[in-house]
């Protein structure tokens, strides 16, 4: 047991995994990972080649080069940093390089905000990365270790993004049970090189190695690109199985089992909150509270957002009367947040489905205290009783500022501006 915050827990897990290359660039609230890992390097506790690159774009590019040359590569980022990597995220997954990254979720500018929400990772939603969301620092530690096994599985070969909520997890101290170094080493095993078929049918190791002149990242036009993308889609499907298998095996080792979803008191739940990340902890606490008041409340935490465990979610929610899907990122112009849209469409062909509503919450690190989630359960109760949905898309913990809602900008010309039409100095 060690007292660690989420960032330290990730750095510690990475130390125990001892990847060959770590390339990273600091950004709040991820910075601690880079700093703590630098100390490990400085003290000779890892044999990793640590590259303090000049930008996140290069952090991902360097990870790509390293992974292509057969190394285990790790990086960490957040927010603007992840956005700067955006181009390279697609290349990492498209080249099928099993890189592991911690994304310490943070809001995106503008306006500038350093606190936690999921808009950074959601921006990379379709980049072909596996996205796992952690509830606490323990899970952050556990997931970084499992990530290698998932990423490097022969049926997957995709990069994995381990998401932890900025500040809420990254900077708060928790007790984390850690494995002995040897156990981690044994669990992740030695890095293996995939053997692939060349266009002419011959087999070749997929690695940049002097003995095998393989070309990676070739130009892939109308005649092959589509098939390669299909292969990526299949790999994501396989990941649904592999994430569970690895989570089970890890459970055998630690007693902490992980799957695609994490249902809490869902067996007989009539009302449910669906959520990702650290807010699940608060929601579980509130569900207990509601249960004590005789309300059949439950929480469904989605751990794996990519791949999206459609079947498991449908199964977990189909008997629920009403559920609220909580989104910690906006999808502007869309009818609902990313998680809501995905869950609603999962039920498209189901006869039995709950009434679903969507809450945007916690943007830019806005606090989501228990009483707000209590309110959600009361809303759900009313909806279940009356059968009336009311507003489907709602905001949780947002000031009701009608004036701001209705404010329309007035436009003036440069001439008016120069003549001081609206005041000024």
């Amino acid at each position, binding site marked *: 047991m060690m007292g660690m915050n989420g960032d330290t827990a990730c750095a510690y897990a990475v130390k125990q995994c001892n990847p*060959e*290359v770590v*390339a990273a660039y600091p950004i709040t609230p991820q910075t601690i990972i880079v700093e703590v890992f630098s100390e490990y390097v400085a003290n000779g506790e890892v*044999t*990793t*080649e640590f*590259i*303090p*690159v*000049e*930008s996140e*774009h*290069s952090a991902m*590019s*360097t*990870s*790509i*080069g*390293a*992974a*292509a*040359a*057969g*190394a285990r*590569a790790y990086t960490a980022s957040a927010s603007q940093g992840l956005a700067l990597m955006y*181009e*390279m995220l697609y*290349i990492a997954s498209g*080249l099928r390089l099993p890189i592991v990254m911690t994304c310490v979720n943070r809001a995106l500018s503008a306006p500038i905000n350093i606190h936690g929400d999921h808009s950074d990772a959601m921006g990379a939603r379709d980049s072909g990365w596996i996205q796992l969301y952690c509830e606490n620092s323990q899970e952050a530690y556990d997931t970084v270790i499992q990530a290698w096994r998932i990423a490097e599985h022969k049926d997957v070969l995709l990069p994995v993004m381990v998401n932890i909520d900025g500040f809420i997890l990254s900077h708060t101290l928790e007790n984390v049970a850690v494995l002995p170094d040897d156990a981690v080493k044994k669990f992740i095993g030695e890095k293996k090189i995939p053997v692939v078929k060349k*266009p*002419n049918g011959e087999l070749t190791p997929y*690695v*940049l*190695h*002097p*003995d*095998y*002149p*393989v*070309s*990676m*990242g*070739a*130009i*892939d*036009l109308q005649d*092959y690109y589509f098939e390669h993308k299909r292969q990526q889609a299949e790999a994501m499907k396989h990941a649904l199985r592999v994430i569970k298998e690895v989570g089970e095996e890890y459970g055998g080792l630690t007693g902490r089992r992980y799957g695609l979803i994490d249902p809490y008191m869902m067996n007989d739940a009539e009302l449910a909150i669906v959520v990702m990340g650290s807010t699940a902890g608060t929601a579980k606490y509130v569900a207990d509270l509601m249960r004590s008041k005789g309300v059949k409340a439950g929480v469904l935490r989605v751990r794996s957002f990519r791949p999206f465990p459609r079947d498991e979610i449908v199964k977990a929610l189909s008997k629920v009367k009403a559920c609220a899907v909580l989104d910690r990122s906006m999808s502007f112009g869309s009818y609902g947040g990313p998680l809501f849209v995905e869950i609603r469409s999962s039920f498209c062909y189901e006869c039995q489905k709950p009434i679903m509503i969507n809450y945007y919450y916690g943007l830019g690190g806005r606090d989501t205290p228990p009483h707000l989630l209590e309110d959600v359960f009361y809303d759900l109760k009313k909806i279940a009783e009356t059968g009336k949905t009311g507003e489907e898309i709602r905001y949780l913990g947002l000031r009701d500022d009608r004036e701001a809602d209705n404010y329309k900008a007035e436009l003036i010309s440069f001439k008016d501006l120069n003549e001081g039409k609206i005041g000024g100095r």
Partner: protein
Amino acid sequence: MSVVKPKDLALTEERLAPGHRLCPGCGEPTTVKLVLKASDDPVIVCSATGCLEVSTSIYPYTSWNVPWIHSAFENAAATAAGVEAAIKALKRKGVYKYDKVNVLAVAGDGGTFDIGFQALSGAFERYHRIVYLLLDNEAYMNTGIQRSGGTPSYASTTTSPDGRVIPGKIQTKKQISRIMVEHEPAYVATISAAFWQDLIQKAKKAFAADGPAFLHSITPCPRGWRHADNISIELCRLAVQTCIFPLWEAEKVEGKMVYKLSAPSKQIAKNPDKKKPVVEYLKLQGRYRHLFKPEEKTDLINKIQEWVDTEWDIILERCGEK
């Protein structure tokens, strides 16, 4: 270093195979082939997006007889840094078979002077042992001849066209190699395929360097320069003879960067009469046609000549020839 014989070169394997789809007369494959021949050790190539990349790797074909990776336009140096770091770490773990593998990053002028400059500067500052080969054809050729930071004055490109008001690119060429010298890497050199012995010697030095090395090649592009495709090497020669592209190298000696003029340029320094007027170089290229037609624009040609003279002076000074 011993002098390389053409016969020996001819006998080494082609690491960039024939059958690629670069244009006839393109300067890129010639330079890349020569540079690759200069390494006796295995080489891993990291290409930036550009003409060389798209023309040599159309799936399911590849022209590369060495391990090769392309990841994006602006990150050849960062990708190469990752490859270099991986090899270092794998060696440390005792699972790497080769003791010395050279990592070569190849990029065009766009991928180097402009969008790729940050990654290049970062990789050199961190002192990765990579060789960075700049194929300078003085514009973004792959996207259709747009101006770059490497495009020289008054060259016409599709984003700096010669019009009724503006005579091609009005700014001067960024002096990238001198900027790279200021990074104080292990080695910097300019190369021209017309002086292939000099090129090979420099590439050998670059591969042997104990730190980052930068090779800057003048690389004619018949499409973009609008010249006959059988005079590319002639233009490589004229670029040196007119001093628009002097040949020099800079090496770290006792912590200080020491410039040295290379033989073909040194001859001109010793005998300034041999310096050809830049107009001889310009008139062969369609990208400068507007300087000669409908009437000769002597003022603009003179301005180019002045620029060349000034830059040549700077190089002579740096090389201690003045």
